[in-house]
């Protein structure tokens, strides 16, 4: 038997760094990429005697996330201590939640292969991030450490601790083991990331570690109702790594099972370079975190008014927006799907429509020229919008619609706008790109071309369509491409009988 004989059962834990300005329990900045240990204070470095003060905004962001994921909310939530020893955790306990999670029993729907699947959310809770260890190779390569050559040499073989990240607020989102394929897991991760961006609670920059996942996977024969032994996978730092690690694990477990071997319940580490997982610890060695209520903090009362305020602040999420784009604006489902996947893109689109652009025309522009431009330049929609605001794109769309601009010319104008930040109207005027649609002006040109090309006129009269193309081409050439093709075709048709 191979992978095809087994069904994967996958659960995911997401750690989303909440986009608060300051840390969860102190006033230190959460900015990414600062030199080591420059964003620390006695509180987040765990000095003796310090006490945590809970960041209300972080609670609110986690609450917003829980509500958006259809969770029940604990009206009295509290923090707990999770005790374990590691040098990146200065107190040797993490303030987290265990007994009264902020949110629980929720769900998120995902679309896989045209079908909707429901992934149940076990809980949504708040916790603090740990610091980062700089292992000897990191120390030697770090560009953030301001070291002389001798200084670096003196640190050879040493592991250093950077506590800038320690105390950054995290929202942990734990699913039930509801995903049945690696593809479902992939779609779940993307859908969750999109939801977090819609909520504005996390910037989801995987490369900066602001959204991280841990996965667990077990296999069972199709049709079985009992779960197999679960393997937890750690050290998967990107969505791509999660997908690869799950694919590897599914195959490894299938191989074992098909050879009649057991899959041990354990935690395995993903080795991205080697493309495989290695055993880290067995269930028997599992850590006892000795959770107990954090006595330095008082429970948080989530009263009805607060809950309603947060609920009201939840924006329209991607699925609802997609439905509205299809049903309200008449976009094809495909277009709507592409646009809503990126909240900023969808916002840009809606602004264009609000300013009067025809929805499908705006969608075509965004999915065509705009997305190509973003892809080529590696920019975000926000960067582009600084140079081509929705108003600018609307002018361009209008110019095409009213015949002022030929479609191909319009694409060039867009490139120009994106490069220079100049407005459409200004560029059209500056470059003299206005189409000639005026009949009086065009009539003379058309008459001249018909007179000069009797052969083509004769062919056209005999119904040879190529002749029309040739004549139109001549008119365009004579006007420097500025003639409106529709108007030209109409004029040729009308003037043909009068031609010599």
């Amino acid at each position, binding site marked *: 038997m191979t992978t095809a004989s087994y069904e994967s059962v996958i659960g995911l834990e997401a750690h989303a760094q909440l986009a608060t300005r300051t840390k969860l329990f102190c006033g230190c900045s959460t900015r990414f990429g600062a030199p080591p240990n420059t964003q620390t204070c006695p509180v987040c470095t765990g000095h003796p005697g310090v006490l945590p003060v809970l960041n209300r905004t972080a609670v609110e962001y986690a609450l917003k996330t829980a509500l958006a994921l259809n969770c029940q909310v604990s009206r009295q939530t509290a923090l707990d201590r999770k*005790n374990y020893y590691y040098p990146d955790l200065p107190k040797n306990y993490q303030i987290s939640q265990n007994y009264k999670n902020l949110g629980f029993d929720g769900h998120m729907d995902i679309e896989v292969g045209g079908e909707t699947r429901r992934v149940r959310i076990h809980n949504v809770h708040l916790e603090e991030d740990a610091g980062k260890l700089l292992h000897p190779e990191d120390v030697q390569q770090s560009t953030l450490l301001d070291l002389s050559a001798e200084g670096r040499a003196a640190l050879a073989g040493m592991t250093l601790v950077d506590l800038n990240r320690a105390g950054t607020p995290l929202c942990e989102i734990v699913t039930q083991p509801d995903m049945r394929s690696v593809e479902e897991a992939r779609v779940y991760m993307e859908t969750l990331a999109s939801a977090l961006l819609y909520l504005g609670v996390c910037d989801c920059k995987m490369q900066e570690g602001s959204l991280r996942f841990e996965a667990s996977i077990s296999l069972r024969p199709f049709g079985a109702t009992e779960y197999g032994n679960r393997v937890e996978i750690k050290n998967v730092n990107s969505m791509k790594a999660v997908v690869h690690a799950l694919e590897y694990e599914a195959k490894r477990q299938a191989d074992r099972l098909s050879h009649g071997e057991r899959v041990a319940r354990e935690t395995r580490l993903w080795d991205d370079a080697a493309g495989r997982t290695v055993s880290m610890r067995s269930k028997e060695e599992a850590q006892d975190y000795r959770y107990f209520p954090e006595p330095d903090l008082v429970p948080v009362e989530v009263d009805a008014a607060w809950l309603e305020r947060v609920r009201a602040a939840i924006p329209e999420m991607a699925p609802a927006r997609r439905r509205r784009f299809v049903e309200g604006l008449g976009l094809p489902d495909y277009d709507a799907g592409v646009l809503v996947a990126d909240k900023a893109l969808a916002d840009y689109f809606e602004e264009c429509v609000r300013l009067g652009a025809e929805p499908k025309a705006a969608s075509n522009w965004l999915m065509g020229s705009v997305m190509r431009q973003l892809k080529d330049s590696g920019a975000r929609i926000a960067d582009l919008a600084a140079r081509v605001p929705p108003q600018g794109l609307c002018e361009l769309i209008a110019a095409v619609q009213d015949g002022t601009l030929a479609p191909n010319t319009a694409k060039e104008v867009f490139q120009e706008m994106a490069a220079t930040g100049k407005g459409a109207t200004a560029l059209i005027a500056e470059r003299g790109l206005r189409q000639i649609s005026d009949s009086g002006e065009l009539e003379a040109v058309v008459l001249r071309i018909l007179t000069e090309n009797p052969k083509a006129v004769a062919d056209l009269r005999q119904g040879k369509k190529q002749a029309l193309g040739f004549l139109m081409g001549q008119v365009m050439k004579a006007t420097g491409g500025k003639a409106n093709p529709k108007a030209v075709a109409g004029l040729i048709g009308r003037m043909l009988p009068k031609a010599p």
Partner: protein
Amino acid sequence: MELYGLTARAVRDRIVAGELTAEAAARACLERIAAVEGKVHAFVSVDAEGALRRAKEVDAALARGERPGALCGIPIALKDNLCTAGTPTTCSSKILANYVPPYNATVVERVLAAGAVPIGKTNLDEFAMGSSTENSAFGTTRNPWDLERVPGGSSGGSAAAVAAGEAVMALGSDTGGSIRQPASFCGVVGLKPTYGRVSRYGLVAFASSLDQIGPIAKDVADAALLLGVIAAHDPRDSTSVPEPVPDYVGQLEADIRGRKVGLPREFFIEGMDPEVEGAVRRAVEVLAGQGAEVMEVSLPHSRIDVKDGQLSAYAVAAYYVIATAEASSNLARYDGAHYGHRTAVSHLQFAHGRDVPIEDATPLVEMFSRSRAEGFGAEVKRRILLGTYALSSGYYDAYYLKASKVRSLIRRDFDEAFERADAIACPTSPTAAFRVGERADDPLQMYMGDVFTISCNLAGIPGIAVPCGFTTGGLPIGLQLLGRPFDELGLLQLARAYERVTDHHQRRPPL
């Protein structure tokens, strides 16, 4: 009277009147320290230079015409588990022997702002774990009344320093009696405020849900003065409470006629030291003589059982589960990685056969384990082990959760008792100060000595210990008064009413 014998109010009055300088007051304490510290050993460190510099600043400020603070020029001793920026804060532990905090505790900020002059850091049982100040990595503090006896603990250094005149007043911390019991053993006044009354920010945590900082002073009025300075809501401590702070000093003198004083039936047990019981009962009669109404109350879950001469009590059991559980987590940060003691043993030594590695340990675990093994004393290790066990998977419900339920019942008992009584009177400790070494090998007996003080911390209510007599051997005995949450004023008024007609607090040890 010698300068060192004066109360804080007297020192402040003279400084404000220009009869005394803050510098002279500091020098008087430093001289007294030089004279008696060799016998008492109340301090872990004395900062003479810092104290004199600070005293001169206070004098200069006064000379500039600045308004004198409530503690203007008063030499104060700080328990060495209160963080002081730039000066060592050791918790009397080897693991923090060289630790210098980068910040001041909120209470330190407040006493400094009020004009106090910190004179030194006082000795304690390591991390405040103990009732005798014998569990210190830096030597045992002696009771100024009898140098063969303990000063009590864990704030033994603070109580002894005040009793011996080495400081005019002091701050201590109380987790299960650590202010009140040493105050009682040393014949001074000690007050544990309501949980949340005083900020814990900068108090090195022993048991976070029980710890509270409070004053140790020569008399009730001085205690009221110091409490008024440190009591305040602190945004840096989420468990501190934004309750208005009354004028403790201004309202201290009160008529106590009609005040109801409850005697808990369960606390007057067979086998209690008769001298202690007698002194406490006489003190209650003194209160009755001033018009207080004495009545019996019941605290069933604070009951003390005596079987075959052995004491047992729910409160003590619950306390030693909750306090050690929290301590096991609070003390996890001392691992040698970021600050404090780090083991010198390295794998290099194993290679040279100078030491044997711990079985199966990674270099990291080796560093953690050895640093902690070398840095912590026996009692701290015992409590970390107890607490770790109590929180372990499979035991949490049976120990921690059960203890939390007992704690709720104890609180409820107090709520009910305070529906009838305004305050509860009882001994502070079942005995007067015991001999150095007497209980050192019997932790259970040592723990049972906390039997009258522990319930107060579990319930989060305020308690005060005031001198109420002496044993025939000349050792101080302390009356304990417990009050409703945030009724420190009521306790101070009762205690002051007692003090008005007695002179126990005026006696000084024959040093």
